[in-house]
C-alpha cells in the first residue's frame, strides 16, 4: 500500500482558498505527517477556477494529484464542487463542499442553466463518493466559509491523524486580532468538543 492521502481543493479566485490550504498544510505538519502541496498563482486568481493540492504521506513526491485519486475533495463553490468531484475524487472518497454560488459566465449570459444543489448529491452517488455539504446562515464575511470547512473536517475527523487542536492552532497561527476571534468562535461552534 502506498502511504498517501490526497486533498484536492477547488474554488473560485477571490474565495481565499489559499488560506484554507495553508491552514490544512500547517495542521498536517503539526500532526507529524509528511506534507507537500501547490496552489494556483497568477491570473486564474482573478475570478477563475483555482485549485490547491495537498498531499500527505511519504509516498507523495510531486505536489500534483492524479485524476480520480483524491481521498478528499474540498470545494468552496457549487459549480466547482461538481468540477472537482468529476475530475479528482477517488471512488470511495469524500466530497466536502461549501454551498456558495458564484454563477459562471455561461449562467449569467443564460447559455447554461444554473446548477441545482441536488446535482452534486447525484454526481457523488453515481461516482461512489460520500457527499458532505456545508452551509452556514448569516456569515459575517464570505472568507469565513473556509473556517466552516476546517471546522467540519475537525468535527468529522476527515483528515487522518489530524486533530481538532491541530486545525485550531493552524487557524490561530494564520489569523490575528478580531478576525481570529470571530473565526475561532465559528470554528468552536461548528467543530464541537475535542475528540
Amino acid at each position, binding site marked *: 500500500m502506498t502511504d498517501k492521502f490526497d486533498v484536492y481543493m477547488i474554488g*473560485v479566485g477571490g474565495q481565499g482558498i489559499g488560506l484554507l490550504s495553508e491552514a490544512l498544510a500547517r495542521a498536517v505538519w503539526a500532526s507529524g505527517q509528511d506534507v507537500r502541496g*501547490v496552489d494556483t498563482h497568477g491570473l486564474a486568481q482573478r475570478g477563475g477556477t483555482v485549485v490547491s493540492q495537498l498531499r500527505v504521506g511519504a509516498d507523495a513526491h510531486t505536489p500534483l494529484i492524479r485524476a480520480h485519486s483524491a481521498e478528499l475533495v474540498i470545494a468552496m463553490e457549487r459549480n466547482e464542487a461538481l468540477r472537482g468531484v468529476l475530475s479528482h475524487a477517488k471512488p470511495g472518497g469524500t466530497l466536502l463542499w461549501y454551498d456558495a454560488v458564484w454563477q459562471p459566465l455561461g449562467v449569467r449570459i443564460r447559455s447554461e442553466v444554473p446548477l441545482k444543489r441536488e446535482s452534486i448529491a447525484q454526481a457523488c452517488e453515481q461516482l461512489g463518493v460520500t457527499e458532505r455539504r456545508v452551509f452556514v446562515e448569516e456569515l459575517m464575511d464570505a472568507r469565513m466559509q473556509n473556517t466552516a470547512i476546517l471546522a467540519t473536517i475537525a468535527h468529522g475527523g476527515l483528515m487522518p491523524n489530524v486533530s481538532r487542536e491541530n486545525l485550531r492552532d493552524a487557524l490561530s497561527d494564520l489569523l490575528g486580532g478580531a478576525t481570529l476571534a470571530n473565526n475561532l468562535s465559528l470554528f468552536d461552534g461548528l467543530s464541537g468538543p475535542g475528540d
Partner: protein
Amino acid sequence: MKKLNDVLLDHEPGSEIMMGNWALVRAMIEADVRVVTSYPGSPTPEIGAAILGLPSEKRPMYFEWSVNEKVATEVAFGASLNGHLSCAFFKSVGLNVAADSFVQLGHMELVGGLVIVLGDDPGANSSQNEQDNRHFARLSYTPVLEPASPTEVMHMFKQACGLSRDMRMPVILRLTTHVCHHKELVHYGSWSPPERDDTPRFDKKAGPYIPVAATVFPLKQRALKKLEQVRAWADDKAPVQSSPGSGGTLRDDLKKKGSQDWVDKPSQPEAVFETPLNRVVDNGNCERGVITMGLPYLSLIDVLADAEEKPDILKLGMVHPLPRETVVRFLEHHSEVKILEELDDFLEQQIKALAYDRGLKTRIIGKETLEEWMGEYTPDKVAEVLRACWGDLLPVSGEIPQVEEHLTARGPRPPQLCPGCGHRTVFHAVRGWLKENDIAVADIGCHTLGFLPPYEVGDALLCMGHSNGTAAGLGLFNNTRRVIAFIGDSTFFHAGLPGIVNAVFNKHNHTLIVMENGTTAMTGHQDHAAGGTNTRGPTVEIPVQQVLEGLGVTQVTRVSAYQEDKLRAALDESFSTPGFSVIIASHPCMLKKTRERRRQGKKPLVPVQVNESCERHYICLSEFACPSYQIADDGGVWVQEDLCIGDRSCMQTCPVNAITPRPKETNPKETDND
C-alpha cells in the same frame, strides 16, 4: 511554524515548509547574492514579494523591479563586473526580451558571478506559449541546472552561484511552474551577515569586454572552452580548473563529495550514485532505463509506485551541457532507454547523436507523438507517455464510474475582470462603439481578458508591447477598417515605447487606448515607472501622458475609465482626423484598492442593488457582465454582495436606472463615501 521573514533571515540552520520561490530567496541570502533584479512574470513574482517582505533595513541584498527583463539582465551584468554576485530572475518569455544582452554574457568574464533564474511554464499555465528555454542556453553557451523540488532549488542555486563565480560565466537555474510553487519541508543552512567590501572592482583588464568583429573569436573560444570544463565537472571526471583568483568553491565541493565510482549496486530504492548534480536510481533493471530531469522525475517516481517492474533512472541536474560520460555509462548498462523529457527533444537529439558516435547499441526511445512535445509532465501525463512506450510497465487503472450526461456538461470558468475593474467599463464602451469590420489589437495584461465573451474586444496578440507595431501594419493600405490598439501602463514602459515612437515617426493611422490602472496588476501589483514608488520608497514619477506628449503625440485625451459616454466621444474624436492618437483610460486597479482599504481597516462601500424598476434587459448581467450580478430562478437579477465592492461603475449601463446603492441602514458596517 515560523514567519517567512524569520526563516529567510535565520542565522541558525533549520527547516520549514517553503515553496520553491521562497527556498530560492533563502538560498540567495545564504550565498550572499548582492544584487537581484527582475521584471515580474509568473511563475516567479513570489520571489520578489518574499524579498520585499523583508524590512528594507534588513534586506541583505539590493533588489529592484527593472523596467523590463533586458534592463534587469544588464543591471545584474554591470553589478557582476564590479565583483558583486548577481541574480536576475524572470518568466520564460522574459528571456526573449532579455535575449539581445543575454546572448552576449557567455563572452564576458563575469567576475562577481551572475545567475539567471528562469521560470519556464510547461503547460502554459500563465503564459502566451510554453517555449523551451534550454534552446537559448545552447545558443549562448550557458550551463543550465534544473531542480525538481524546493529542496533542490535551494541546493542548486548555491551550486549555480559557485559555478558562475568560479568560471566567471553566466549560469541558468531553470525552474518550472510547479517547482516554483511546490511547497515542501526544506532544510536550510546557517547564515550570518558577512563582513562586506563593496568596493567597485571593475577592471577592464579582466576583459576584454568589447566584442567587435575579429575580437569576438577569442571570446567565443573562451566561452566554448568554459562550457567543456563545466561538462567535465558535471561528469565528475575531472575537477574544473578554477579561474585565477576565484574562491575555489568547486574544488572544495568535489573534495567534500569525494569522487565516487560508477557501480551497479544491488537493487535499492534510493539513489546509489550521486555526482554533485546528477543521480542514478538503481532499481536493478538491466533492460530498461529512463533519463529524465526536473519535475518529470518526481512524476515518474509517483507513477512507478504501483509498478511491479521499475526501470533504472538517470536524473540529470545539469541539462546543459550534457554530461556525456554519465549518460554513456547509463546507456551502456541498459538495452532500452526512454528519454522522458518535457517540451522539446533537446536532450533526445544530443543523446542519440552521442550513442551514434560511441557506437552504442542501446535502443533509445524519444518522443513518439506530437502530444509528447506538449504540456506539463504531470504524473498523469508521464503515465500516458510510459504506457505508449512500454505497454506492460504500469498496472491497468481501475474503472471510473460514469455520471449521467446532464451532470458533466459545464463549461470551464476562465479568469475574468474583477468587480469594479476600469478595464470592464472600457471594453463595454468599446464593444458598443466598434463596427463589424473594425480591428482591435490586444496586448498583455489583465486587459487581455477583454477578448473573452461577452466583450470580445481583442482580435490579435503576440506578446507584451506588440500592439502598436501590429496595429500600424494593419493600418497600411487600409482606408476602410478602423484599427484600435490597447496597452497597459506597465507594458507601456516595458516594451511599448518603441512601437509608439514608430507610430509617431512613421505617421501611422490608428488609435491606442492606454489602460492606465497605476500598477502591474496581472502579476500581483508591482510598482512601475509612472507610480512614484520603487522597491526602496518614493521616486520620481514618470507620467504616461507627459511621456506621450514628449514623444510628439499630438492627440492625447485623458478620460476616466468609468465614463462610457466620454470614452466613446473620445474615440469618435480620434477617428475624425487621420493619424496616430492616444486615449488614456484611467482608473486605479480596484483589486489593489479594495485590499488596501481592508488592510487600513476602512469600512467596505455599500453594494448596489437591483430595484423594482428592473425590466430584465439583462445588460448588467450579460453585456456589462460584472460577476456580482446573478440570475434568479424566476428570471430576476440580484447582486451577490460577497462580490460587489460598491464601485457603482455598473449604474450607467442600466437603461431604466434600476441599479441603485442599497440603503445603508441595513448594514451599519458600510459607508457610502470613499
